[in-house]
Structure formats: C-alpha cells, structure tokens
C-alpha cells in the first residue's frame, strides 16, 4: 500500500473527473490524476500510483527503478499489481 506503482500517462480520458489512462507494464488502466494536475500532466509523463490515484510525478529513470524494485518484491506487491490490473475505474 505504501510503495506505489509507476505508470505512464497515455491520455486524459475524463477532464472533469481528472481521469487519465496510464500504462503499467503494458497494461492500460484508468487512474485519477486530480492531485498532480497542477504540476502539468501530459501523455508520456510518469506518475506514482497509490490505490488508483496518481500521487506524484516521477522522472523516467525513477519510474524504471521503482518498477524493478516492485518486481523484486514478494507476493504482496505483485498482488498489488494484479489488483491494479483488475481495476475498472471510470
């Protein structure tokens, strides 16, 4: 829960509700980007996602290293990735 998952912004899908499509390891899911929009969010940017919410912008290098760290983690963290894959946020 406290580690977060890096994802890359693909497009903004709902401007009013601040929902963007992100790609995490080849899988595309919707997340809320409301609290990071002031930092300027555009397709190609990387964000750190906690329970369906982008909470921080990341640079690409940091995102890649964080993903590597996540993949090295035990079942609890791969479970979190699987939970994200099962998410259907609108």
């Amino acid at each position: 829960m406290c580690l977060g998952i890096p994802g890359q912004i693909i497009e903004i899908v709902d401007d009013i509700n601040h929902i963007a499509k992100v790609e995490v390891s080849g899988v595309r899911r919707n997340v809320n980007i409301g609290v990071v929009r002031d930092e300027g969010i555009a397709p190609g940017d990387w964000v750190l996602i906690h329970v369906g919410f982008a909470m921080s912008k990341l640079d690409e290098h940091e995102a890649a290293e964080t993903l590597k760290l996540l993949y090295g983690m035990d079942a609890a963290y791969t479970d979190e990735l699987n939970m994200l894959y099962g998410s259907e946020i609108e």
Partner: protein
Amino acid sequence: MKYVDEYRDPALAQRISAEIGKLSAGRPLKMMEVCGGHTHTIYKHGIEDVLPPNIDLIHGPGCPVCVLPMGRVDDAIAIARTEGVIFTTFGDMMRVPGSNGSLLDAKAAGADVRFVYSPLDALKLARQNPSREVVFFAIGFETTAPSTAITLLRAQAEGIRNFSVFCNHVTIIPALKAILDSPDLRLDGFVGPGHVSMVIGMRPYTFITRDHHKPIVIAGFEPLDIIQSVYMIVQQISEGRAEVENQYARVVRPEGNVKALEAMARTMELRPYFEWRGLGFITHSALKLRREYALWDAELRFEVPGIRVADPKACQCGEVLKGVIKPWECKVFGTACTPETPIGTCMVSSEGACAAYYNYGRFSMAAERAHLPTINLQPATQAQH
C-alpha cells in the same frame, strides 16, 4: 552526496556504512522507521546486516493494517454481514483476525465481501448495483486518505447514495508524539516515512526536532535510500544538530501535496481519540467523515458494535509495534503465529514487522546476534502469504 545517481550502487552501501561506523564511533544508536514499506525493505535486503552493529533499527507503528485494533475489524465484519451490503476492502485486510474470525471467514459464511484495488472501484460497484449498499473499508495513513476523500467528493457530485465509507484512516504525527512521550523507549532519531511525507510535507515533523531534539530524515524505499538516511541521522547527531531533512527529495516536496490535503480537509476531520493496537487510545490520531458527508458515513448508516476488544493474551503485537521488543522475541512468533495462521496483525500484512522478519530476516546476522531460538520452518524464500 548526490541523491539521484548513486543510491542504487551496492559498493556505495558498504562505503556509507563504513562512514556511519566512523561517525558514530561505536556509540549505540536507536532509530525508528515508521513506514511499513521501509520495514519490508530493511528485512528484504538485510540492511541491519549492512549497517554497523551499534546501529539498532526499531520498527515503529507504520503499517496501517497492523495498528487497527481488533474491535474495528469486528465492526467491519458486522457491516459486511448486514443484509444487502457489498463490503469492499483492500486485499491485506481480508485475513486480519477479529475476535470471532476474519473478513475472509465472513465471506466464506456468505457475506458479500469483495477485494478492490481502489475506492473508485468500490464507487463503480455502487453505480452498477443501485439496489445494494456498497461499503468501502478505508484504511491507511495520509498516503491513502486523499484517495478516499476524492472518492467521497465524486460520490457527492454524482449523487450516489448507496455508497458509504467505513473510515479508519490514521494520522502519523500523533503516533510519533505518543512514542516520543512513552517512557518505554529511548530513540536517537527517526527514518521518516516517504509517501506519507509526499502528502503532508516536512513541516509537521518540526515538533520532533524542536521539542524533542531528535533528527528525522525522510527516506525513499531503495535499500540505499535507507542506508543514506541513517548516515544523515548519524551526521546530525555527531554535529549536535536536530533537523527535518529530506533524503527523498525526488518525490517529497517540502510543502507536501496541497491538493491532496485540501481534499482531506473538505471531507474529513480529526476524531477526538482513536485506539491503536499496542499504543492504546491516542488523541486526535485518526480521521472521520465531516458531518456534511454523514450520508456517506458507514458508521452512521449501519449498526456497528463499537466494542473494544483486547488482543489475544499470547500476542505481543503491541510491544512489537512500539518497538519495545523485536518480532522474534514474541512468545508465539514462528510457532503458533505464522503468515499462514496469524494470531496478530504484524504477521498478516507484508508490511508488518513480524511477517517481513519471518519471510526474510530469520537468517540474518542481526538475528544471530540476538540468539534467536532455532525454529523448524520452511526456507525463507518459500514462505508466502
């Protein structure tokens, strides 16, 4: 020292550790981390074995699953068993034992309990099931509280009335105050939580430096982030300083995330007090929904027993959470209490000190130094949840 390019270099870890040894000159120093993610990293990467033996890392109450008292789990199960309810929860709450079974047991007995990844997934379930009551079991520190807050704002905006939140969000600062005020433990510094700080920023920690004259360094989650943070704490101590420093500047801004804090402030307010497992009742240490959001407050919409339940006698999660004992010093650790059949919360969540230690730390030098009794268990690499 550079923060960006060098922190993943293993040879550098050894060099920094040697510097820590030199600066601390063998003086025993106790540092507490209050983030479950840090605890996990420390055990997973054997950081206690990399650091000089005079540095003692104490694992504080940084795992939200672990600090939730048994009575609240019972309340959750009571809501989940209510006719017509779809009860939604993060996966790691499922197996936490209440006084009479877990949510998983309630599900097996017929309650409609579902995993969700996000509160927004719970809200979607409410849209899809207008004839059912969808309740979201909200847990976590300030890292996840904003997501609950924003979900509430959206439920309100869309007028979704069959959605509600069972709010158990806790706040880190009062817990740190309680630990600093406790006579049980003398600490020399804190490794500050990375992603809680991403939301609350650096300023809330100033009481630690101002009133208690202890250093705190906000740390990232890589092994080298933690080692470097320990170095920064030791450096402060050796120079007689006590400051809030930020090792995780690549994610944590000094002011935190203002938008996230605003969403929390609009929807939630501090409870007068809240019970923490192991720490007891702490003033202003948890959040509840504001009166304006009473429509979405599961505690008002459902009958909850609200009864305080004492932990099982054999379980010493309380002492573990306060850092008074190490996981392996608990009487039931690794015997009656394992990740497969947990008695206490610290063994349930992968962010709990006992589960992290059970999975990775049992064969460490730190454990050997503490004369860990031999227990007959599977190899650490195979221990799973």
